[in-house]
């Protein structure tokens, strides 16, 4: 199709032709076009179907406020629904399809909804789908969703990457129209660090859409020259294609930069979009204004646009929407559309001006005191019906109509901190109110200053004032001459007598719907919004909200400001989820922490498990082993039989020094550490303030004023943070210094009867039982490398933990494995670790569940009453110290062939499986290769006194029930003789 509606002029590059497809048909355009301008140039006005009634729709606007012309852009995995054709930059090869239409855009079967509009009024769903209740989720909602949706997701993985970043400036200028450009120029010339962001790909704002000049240049040329000057300034960052989405706290603004959306696909390694966090000392909102229409009966046909947009298509893109154009206005700005189009040779058939008097436009049929009362044309405007000042009705043939009811400042960002806009009777619109973002000032049309001169002057003055507060003085300058026409508007909110006059075109909200909401007492603005959906969805009511408020004000007899506005919330325009995620998706969702033995383990084919950010070896399969149980059983049995090695680097390590280090530990641990001898370590139990167990681990005394604390892997950070809080806030007078050393040391557990023999081959010192007894700790050397050794055991075997500086961790695991060959040593993972700790009856994460006390765990004696420590007082609460409270027990199935399930609840034999009979639950369950059957730990009511009792463990979710016997939690070596061997 040829560009039949392309006219002279515009800021497009006619030397190049871009090919694109819409709904499978080929079209052409030029660089500088949007998809909407190119389609209009090709005579395509019908671009979509409406949300509810599936009425034919074309673009209403030429910008980001567009409610109608929503398309699916691109195809395959890059398909993006609900893209506004008015801001989609044309590129060669672009493909777009219409949405919300079946089987085709021109014949949409669901347009039948329009015939039944009487039923589909506001509140239709709430009234109609009341019963039966069970139908809502399964029947009604799926049908409604299928019928009402707009675009569709491809459901394929997004092939593009997204980035995020952080920028800093003295002055952020939001919007690059005349006010924004002037503000940036004033600030840029002062040397301040400036960021000028604009959502458009061409800076200049309305200057690109108008014909009036600035100085001796056209507005567009002045904008281009100003942008060129700004581009030479190293202190100014120009960010086109960048939308400021939100004002956050402390001068921070979020922005999305569409880096590659104007390209067929991003260049290699380049993001599609970047989400920026902009730290600004001062900010100026120069986001311009959005025009609003005057609703009349059937005002939604393709070809009916905002008057300023009709003018923009002609002036900026060299496009006329139709060959016969009319304008419907209540203000002087609308007259510009008529004169501009006429100057371009377009047939302007009439200007319908609601105002009764004033000068007439020369050479144009200017009907004063008139209204448009209806329109006709099935898939696009063919005629309008007007009623003149004398009440005569006339039908005028036209294919395009520009309507304007005035302009609303784009005050969204200024209203983000719950600032309420203020009403201006003179301008018939809301202006930015007080209480907005503290560092933000509005200028230009965003502040209600609509003339070009006022925009330039306010941009300059606002920037100057903002810089002044930063101690920066901008050099004096003379502003160029520009038009300074006052706003001449007589409010005319809608055409009386209209019913199906669209206020919110995206949500199909009409005057009739607003009246219905009022009739049904949903008159408050927030109720109005939710009842009718006015102002929802992707355009957030940018063109319709104020009209809706005005209609409601009229119905209630209140003023518009008394009626109020809904709350402005981010984002200003829709943001792709990918931009919010940035790089953080898939494998890059979170960082990885690799243990010192990771490289070696990966070489061995280890199976890894995520433990927080850590990747730990879960088990190490050997050739021939086909199930994880085979590997784990082997690792456990061999460790207990000879020796096993396990990477325990992930346990938190905190270096605690200072002359009060011992006293400090006495306060943070429930048991005592100040009496611990140098060269020894002790198991410690840490409580929360409420007496519940927080964490456990061993702490070693390496010197008189020096301790090394170990924490659980999961709580390494939270314990460190807790200790810092105690040190800094609770007891600032204590001489204690803390630093994490988790990463600094590679630490391996060496456990089993041959642990000492293995280690002695590598350690340079005597580590016999006499020289290095149970719970010993000290500095040693490993083949000359300084190291630390702790004689502690989690498995219940003779065991040590040996630590070397992390750089030697890889070498040490290899040395341990080599030295262990003569003992058939195994390396075991977290599964075997878990098996052995349960066999030994040690508590871990499943038991330290944030609701259990030391008493529950059978560790009540560790809570020293001889000193004060965090949590000790509240651990003595009556409810936590009941004799028949939960106690840790061991559990084994009566029939050894049966497995149990962790989480199952204890029930007495014959008891109903109800909460009233609940006696506790299984916390941890494993298969014990040592015992030859499954075993478990659990919290059982009065458990200590129920050893030997037979009962049931019941899991109602999985419908399992196993008869069990309650036993000691220590399945292995209850006397602890192995530890001390």
């Amino acid at each position, binding site marked *: 199709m040829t560009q039949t509606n392309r006219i002279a002029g515009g800021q497009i590059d006619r030397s190049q032709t871009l090919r694109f497809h819409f709904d499978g048909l080929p079209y052409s355009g030029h660089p500088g076009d949007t998809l909407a301008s190119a389609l209009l140039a090709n005579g395509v006005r019908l671009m979509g179907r409406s949300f509810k009634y599936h009425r034919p729709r074309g673009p209403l606007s030429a910008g980001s406020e567009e409610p109608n012309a929503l398309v699916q852009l691109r195809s395959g995995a890059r398909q993006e629904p609900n893209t506004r054709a008015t801001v989609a930059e044309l590129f060669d090869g672009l493909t777009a399809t219409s949405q919300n239409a079946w089987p085709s855009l021109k014949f949409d079967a669901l347009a039948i909804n329009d015939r039944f509009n009487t039923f589909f009024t506001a509140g239709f769903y709430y009234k109609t789908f009341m019963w039966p209740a069970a139908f809502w989720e399964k029947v009604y909602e799926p049908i409604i969703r299928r019928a009402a949706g707009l675009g569709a997701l491809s459901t394929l993985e997004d092939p593009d990457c997204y980035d995020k970043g952080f920028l800093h400036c003295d002055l952020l200028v939001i919007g690059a129209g005349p006010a924004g450009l002037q503000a940036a120029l004033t600030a840029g010339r002062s040397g301040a660090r400036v960021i000028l962001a604009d959502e458009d790909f061409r800076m200049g704002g309305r200057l690109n859409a108008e014909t009036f000049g600035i100085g001796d240049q056209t507005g567009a040329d002045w904008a281009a020259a100003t942008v060129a000057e700004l581009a030479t300034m190293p202190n100014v960052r120009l960010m086109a294609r960048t939308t400021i989405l939100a004002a956050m706290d402390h001068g921070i603004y979020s922005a999305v930069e569409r880096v590659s959306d104007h390209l067929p696909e991003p260049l290699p390694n380049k993001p599609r979009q970047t989400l920026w966090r902009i730290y600004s000392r001062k900010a100026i909102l120069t986001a311009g204004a959005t025009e609003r229409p005057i609703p009349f009966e059937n005002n939604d046909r393709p070809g009916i646009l905002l008057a300023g947009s009709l003018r923009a298509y002609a002036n900026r893109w060299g496009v006329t929407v139709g060959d016969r154009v009319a304008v419907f206005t209540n203000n002087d700005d609308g007259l510009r559309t008529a004169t501009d189009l006429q100057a371009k040779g377009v047939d302007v058939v009439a200007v319908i001006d609601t105002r009764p008097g004033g000068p007439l436009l020369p050479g144009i049929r200017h009907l004063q005191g008139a209204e448009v009362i209806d329109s006709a044309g099935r898939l696009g405007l063919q005629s309008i019906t007007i009623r003149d000042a004398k009440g005569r009705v006339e039908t005028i043939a036209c294919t395009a109509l520009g309507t304007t009811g005035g302009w609303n400042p784009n005050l969204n960002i200024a209203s983000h901190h719950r600032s309420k806009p203020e009403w201006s009777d003179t301008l018939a619109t809301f202006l930015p109110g007080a209480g907005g973002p503290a560092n933000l000032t509005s200028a230009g049309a965003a502040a209600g200053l609509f003339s070009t001169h006022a925009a330039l002057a306010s941009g300059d003055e606002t920037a100057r004032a903002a810089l002044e507060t930063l101690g920066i003085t901008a050099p004096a300058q003379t502003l160029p001459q520009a038009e300074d026409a006052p706003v001449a508007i007589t409010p005319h909110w809608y055409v009386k007598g209209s019913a199906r006059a669209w206020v919110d075109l995206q949500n199909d909200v009409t005057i009739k719907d607003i009246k219905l909401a009022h009739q049904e007492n949903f008159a408050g603005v927030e109720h109005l919004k939710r009842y009718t959906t006015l102002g929802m969805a992707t355009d957030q009511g940018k063109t319709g909200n104020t009209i809706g408020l005005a209609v409601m004000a009229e119905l209630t007899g209140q003023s518009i400001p008394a009626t109020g506005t809904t709350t402005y919330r981010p984002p200003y325009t829709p943001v792709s989820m990918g931009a919010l995620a940035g790089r953080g998706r898939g494998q890059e969702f979170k*960082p990885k922490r*690799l243990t010192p033995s990771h490289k070696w383990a990966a070489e061995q084919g280890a199976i890894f498990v995520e433990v927080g950010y850590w990747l730990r070896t879960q088990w190490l399969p050997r050739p021939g082993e086909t199930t994880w149980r085979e590997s784990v059983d082997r690792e456990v049995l061999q460790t207990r039989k000879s020796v096993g090695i396990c990477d325990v*680097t992930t346990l938190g390590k905190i270096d605690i020094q*200072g*002359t009060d280090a011992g006293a400090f530990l006495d306060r943070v641990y429930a048991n005592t550490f100040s009496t611990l001898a140098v060269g020894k370590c002790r198991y410690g139990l840490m409580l929360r303030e409420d007496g519940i167990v927080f964490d456990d681990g061993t702490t070693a005394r390496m010197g008189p004023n020096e301790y090394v604390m170990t924490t659980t892997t999961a709580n390494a950070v939270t314990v460190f943070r807790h200790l810092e809080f105690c040190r800094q806030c609770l007891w600032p007078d204590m*001489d204690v210094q803390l630093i994490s*050393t988790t990463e600094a040391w590679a630490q391996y557990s060496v456990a089993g009867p041959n642990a000492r023999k293995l280690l002695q081959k590598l350690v340079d010192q005597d580590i016999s039982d006499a020289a290095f007894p149970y719970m010993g700790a000290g500095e040693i050397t490993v083949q000359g490398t300084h190291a630390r050794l702790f004689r502690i055991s989690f498995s219940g075997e003779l065991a040590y933990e040996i630590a070397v500086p992390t750089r030697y961790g890889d070498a040490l695991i290899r040395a341990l494995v080599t030295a262990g060959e003569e003992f058939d040593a195994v390396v075991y993972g977290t599964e075997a670790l878990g098996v052995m700790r349960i066999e030994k009856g040690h508590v871990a994460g499943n038991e330290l569940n944030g609701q259990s006390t030391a008493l529950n765990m059978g560790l009540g004696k560790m809570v020293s009453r001889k000193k004060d420590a965090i949590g000790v007082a509240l651990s003595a609460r009556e409810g936590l110290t009941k004799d028949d409270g939960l106690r840790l027990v061991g559990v084994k199935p009566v029939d050894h062939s049966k497995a149990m399930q962790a989480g199952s609840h204890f029930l007495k034999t014959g008891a109903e499986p109800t909460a009233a009979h609940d006696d506790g639950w299984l916390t941890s369950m494993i298969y014990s290769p040592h015992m030859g059957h499954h075993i478990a730990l659990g919290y059982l009511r009065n458990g200590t006194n129920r050893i030997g009792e037979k009962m049931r463990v019941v899991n109602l979710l999985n419908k399992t029930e196993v008869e069990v016997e309650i036993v000691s939690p220590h399945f292995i070596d209850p006397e602890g003789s192995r530890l001390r061997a």
Partner: protein
Amino acid sequence: MLEPLSPLGHAVPEATTIGPFTITERTDTALASLAIRYGRAADVTATAAAAGIPLPKPGRHEIQTLAAFWLAPDMWMIEAPFVPHEDIRAHLLTLFHDAASITEQTDAWVRLDLTAPDLPALMERLCNTDLRAAPVGFATRTVIDHLGCYLIKRSDRDITLYGPRSSAQTLHHALTVAALSLT
């Protein structure tokens, strides 16, 4: 004799060049934290001055005989050549004795040095530090890809990042991806 491995898993640290950006892993620096014990500020200050160990103000990195950057109130990270300071804690203890708490930190961190004519363009995609405005000698704690890091501006075209050692590969990957996006 145990052989060391670099945080990125190399026997000998390597450099990566992506366009104008060079990312170099460094293992020739020994690190230790030094914290003044209660009431011993005068002792530590005097000893440090005599030994040529700077105790810079917040946000600063300084170089004398050894180098240091600020970590927290009354706490610094001391940088020293790995040779001959492999056992840096022992070295510092002989100077400060019980006036300070000293903890070896060499292997807690991966050190990555970045060189390029325009490093702010890279770092603005990684962290919220205003590197463009930061003076030479600036040092700060920041977050890159969820990882707590220290950033030191050594010159207008040289910075050092200290990131958690176990996440060295994640940090290096983040730097690489950001650098690639600029080439």
